[in-house]
């Protein structure tokens, strides 16, 4: 199609260009011809008028001279005597006066009788004589004795001086130059020049260039061709014209120059004026005009051609662009079709895989249901069947969820539900979900948290869970039994600013790995490496596509994969998450000494740093033996550890054995020992408890994990300590006698009732005055304490206290506790200032009162 269009365009361009050239050439040639014709016409017109002018001029010159001659002739009368001396002298004088060089009588016999000048001969006497005889005036050419040409003017004279001589005319001679000078026949070469010939072609007056005597001879000698005729033809034509006495005009090229020739008869003579007009100047002008015309033509032709070329070029460009677009569209369509076919094929493959994958659990469900039905009474069997049905259902649900997610992604409907989440909770839940699978395959699973300071971020926890779970479950799936799986979380500064934090999630295994070829397709939909190794591993082939979509497209992060067949796979997910706007709990623990024991140095350092940041003085060591040593040393210095964190899996002596040794060395179980484990500790719990393990702490060890776990244990410790203190100091106060100063009976009764229940014996004083009196009247030591209301009639609590403190009694310092509805700080202060021991506010809090009594009663 492209070539066709191009060919058409090029052909049409060439065609149009040729047409242009032809038209313009035609115009040029036509104009040139036209101009040549015009020049010819102009030349003819010009020549005829010029020739006429010369002819007239010639006639006037000749007639002037003829008149002069006639005047001479008139002097000759019929009476005059032939050879009269006087007449002859008169004639000669007249001739001289009139500038005639020659003067002669011409006899009818054709003989000259010279009166003045040399002897003359007429070149062609016949026509001359004939005319003279007829009485006509005539001009002729003749020669003198020196052979010089002379113009002869013949004037017939009726009065012949010598009848015997039969004188026909008086002839005057003039030099040829006279005429030629007067006629100005010699012109410069640019313009016309003329000469005069006789009928036989001999020159009467010739130009300088014409060295021959006869024009015809000259023509014959010089020119082979005159205007398409031979020289003879030309001469014939000229001669014929002369014979008919008409003007002759023609045009010919002579010596490379174009000439226009005009021939006309001159009066008084047998002469012919031939005028040449060289076209040189006119040709120059016309040629210049022609050239200008031609160049204009060429120029306009070029302009038109250029314009055409431009149009063509533009059109060509447009066409090509259209072609390109069409081509691109075609390619895109092809690619789209290919993609569609590929997707279609993938979907078909997926469906066939799926049908297998779905059928397997469905078969299990159907089969197990049948077995359960058949053994409905065998509870154990039914339980077993139900368990398997549950597992299969879950697997089926997983498949369906993946497919739904994928269709959500493909229809662009998956959106994130951003919420405040705790990374610790997310990782915790992931770890607990993965643990059963890891345990089933006896894999080593380790989670490592590296200095995560921002645990609370904004993210879609469901999707983040999904990503981690996908990566981990793949790692578990493609790592053989006994392999290692490592998950790590790092925190970095985010390039997005202070409000963000960059979280790196690394999932690494030493499983079967992937081929390079497959790694490049791992994020494609329905991708599953098709090899015998993974043939049995179930899955939809959608997990990684979903993962990539969530991480990259939805969360704006990145995911990298590094894998080698047989060596393992490592996924790195990088996410920039916004920090959650929460006031983080002020996590501070008492300044305890703690020991962290783990064979992973990084974990020790990271955990110790986290502990330091929550106020705990942490030390760490890498193995059980050194741990026991350190514990014993500290114990001997009476500066034992408050809590010990022990990893379960240690080189050599494991965590449980270490705990046992520590318990043996210390000889008590006062120090809590916590076992660090990423695993469900159900299996080891029994042996661990036996060995003296106090509790468990689960990996990953976020700061908050540590804080929450330790606070719980620390709380227990504090409580224990307090309880111990209480049981030590708490005494039985029953039987103690208390004097209660209270003006209001109702209040008194309430207090009395409540405190009696505690075994106290109470006496009532209705105001401060009575209180003082009662105390004073009692034997010393009778009352163990006084509870004193402040606002009482007669004497208030403050005064009463002041009085009691100044009594001359050994027991004047007995405890006095203010008990009042006033609970302001200044009231408390005033009570103490007055000498009271403590202050309790109403309503009466029995426990508080008992605590204070317990404190102050000696």
């Amino acid at each position, binding site marked *: 199609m492209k070539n066709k269009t191009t060919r058409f365009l090029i052909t049409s361009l060439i065609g149009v260009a040729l047409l242009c050239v032809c038209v313009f050439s035609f115009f040029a040639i036509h104009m040139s011809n036209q101009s040549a014709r015009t020049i010819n016409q102009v030349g003819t017109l010009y020549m005829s008028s010029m020739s006429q002018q010369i002819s007239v001029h010639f006639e006037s010159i000749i007639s002037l001279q003829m008149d002069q001659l006639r005047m001479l002739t008139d002097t000759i009368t019929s009476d005059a005597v032939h050879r009269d001396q006087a007449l002859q002298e008169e004639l000669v004088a007249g001739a001289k006066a009139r500038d005639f060089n020659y003067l002669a009588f011409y006899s009818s016999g054709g003989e000259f009788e010279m009166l003045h000048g040399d002897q003359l001969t007429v070149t062609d006497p016949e026509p001359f004589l004939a005319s003279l005889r007829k009485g006509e005036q005539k001009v002729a050419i003749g020669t003198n004795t020196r052979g010089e040409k002379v113009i002869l003017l013949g004037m017939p004279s009726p009065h012949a001086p010598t009848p015997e001589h039969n004188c026909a005319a008086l002839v005057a001679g003039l030099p040829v130059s006279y005429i030629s000078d007067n006629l100005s026949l010699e012109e410069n070469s640019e313009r016309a020049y003329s000469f005069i010939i006789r009928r036989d072609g001999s020159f009467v007056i010739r130009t300088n260039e014409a060295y021959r005597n006869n024009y015809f001879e000259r023509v014959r000698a010089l020119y082979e061709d005159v205007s398409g005729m031979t020289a003879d033809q030309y001469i014939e034509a000229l001669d014929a014209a002369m014979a008919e006495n008409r003007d002759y005009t023609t045009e010919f090229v002579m010596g490379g120059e174009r000439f226009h020739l005009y021939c006309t008869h001159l009066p008084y003579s047998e002469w012919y004026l031939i005028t040449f007009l060289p076209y040189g100047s006119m040709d120059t002008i016309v040629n210049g005009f022609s050239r200008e015309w031609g160049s204009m033509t060429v120029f306009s032709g070029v302009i038109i051609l250029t314009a055409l070329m431009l149009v063509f070029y533009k059109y060509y460009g447009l066409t090509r662009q259209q072609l390109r677009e069409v081509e691109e569209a075609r390619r895109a369509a092809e690619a789209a079709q290919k993609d569609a076919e590929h997707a279609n094929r993938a979907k078909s493959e997926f469906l066939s895989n799926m049908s297998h994958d779905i059928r397997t659990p469905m078969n299990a469900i159907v089969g197990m249901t049948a077995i359960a039905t058949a053994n409905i009474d065998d509870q154990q069997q039914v339980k077993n069947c139900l368990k398997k049905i549950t597992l299969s259902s879950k697997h089926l649900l997983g498949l369906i969820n993946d497919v739904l997610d994928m269709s959500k992604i493909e229809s662009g409907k998956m959106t994130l539900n951003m919420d405040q989440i705790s990374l610790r909770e997310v990782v915790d839940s992931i770890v607990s979900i993965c643990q059963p699978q890891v345990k089933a395959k006896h894999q080593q699973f380790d989670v490592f948290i590296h200095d995560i300071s921002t645990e609370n971020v904004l993210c879609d926890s469901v999707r983040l869970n999904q990503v981690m779970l996908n990566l981990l479950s793949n790692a578990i799936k493609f790592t053989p039994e006994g392999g290692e799986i490592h998950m790590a979380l790092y925190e970095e500064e985010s390039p997005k600013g202070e409000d963000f934090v960059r979280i790196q999630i690394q999932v690494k295994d030493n499983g079967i790995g992937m081929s390079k070829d497959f790694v490049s397709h791992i994020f494609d939909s329905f991708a599953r490496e098709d090899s015998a190794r993974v043939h049995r591993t179930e899955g939809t082939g959608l997990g990684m596509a979903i993962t990539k979509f969530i991480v990259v497209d939805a969360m704006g992060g990145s995911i990298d994969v590094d894998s080698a067949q047989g060596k393992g796979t490592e996924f790195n997910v990088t996410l920039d998450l916004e920090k959650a706007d929460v006031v983080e709990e002020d996590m501070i623990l008492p300044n305890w000494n703690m020991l962290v024991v783990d064979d992973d140095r990084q974990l020790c350092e990271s955990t110790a740093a986290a502990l330091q940041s929550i106020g705990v003085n942490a030390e760490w060591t890498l193995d059980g033996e050194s741990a026991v040593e350190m514990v014993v040393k500290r114990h001997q210095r009476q500066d034992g550890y408050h809590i010990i964190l022990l990893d379960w899996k240690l080189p050599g002596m494991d965590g449980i054995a270490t705990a046992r040794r520590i318990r043996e060395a210390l000889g008590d179980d006062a120090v809590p020992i916590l076992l660090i484990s990423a695993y469900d500790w159900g299996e080891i719990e029994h042996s661990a408890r036996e060995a003296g393990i106090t509790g468990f702490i689960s990996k990953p060890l976020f700061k908050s994990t540590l804080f929450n776990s330790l606070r719980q244990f620390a709380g227990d410790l504090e409580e224990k300590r307090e309880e111990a203190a209480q049981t030590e100091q708490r005494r039985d106060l029953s039987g103690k006698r208390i004097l209660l100063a209270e*003006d*209001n*009976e*109702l*209040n008194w*009764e*309430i207090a009395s*009732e*409540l405190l009696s229940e505690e075994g106290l014996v109470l006496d009532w004083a209705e105001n401060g005055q009575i209180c003082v009196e009662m105390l004073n009247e009692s034997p010393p030591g009778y009352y163990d304490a006084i509870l004193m*209301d402040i*606002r*009482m*009639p007669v004497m208030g609590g403050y005064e009463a206290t002041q009085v009691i403190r100044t009594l001359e009694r050994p027991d004047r310092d007995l405890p006095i506790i203010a008990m*009042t*509805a*006033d609970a302001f700080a200044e009231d408390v202060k005033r009570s103490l200032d007055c000498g009271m021991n403590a202050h309790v506010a*109403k*309503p*009466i*809090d*029995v426990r508080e009162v008992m605590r204070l009594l317990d404190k102050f009663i000696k």
Partner: protein
Amino acid sequence: MTLKECYAALGGDYDDVLGRLPERLVQKFVLKFLNDGSYDLLCRSLADGDRAEAFRAAHTIKGVCANLGFSALLESSEQLTEALRDGAPPQPGEEELIRRVGEDYQRTVQAIQAFQGALGA
């Protein structure tokens, strides 16, 4: 009428008082509140212009109410106590406080009397 309903009627905090006293004692002391002369003393003192005594009486009412969990009367009597504290001169609005204490006291007394009546029946 139960004791709880009685507390609801007089604007008291039954749960609070039960936290400190056994129900038996609460009932006993609530009934005894009817015989308490503090309110009469308050009224008399105010009528006599004995502001110091009036303060003490208001203070006593406040103490009793705190012990018995009579929240409404406790609140109004506490405000009056502060208004009368240290023999302060009468302030605008004091009348209003006295009126409110009276209202709350009447309401309390009526509720307890109703309860007493219910017990008797």
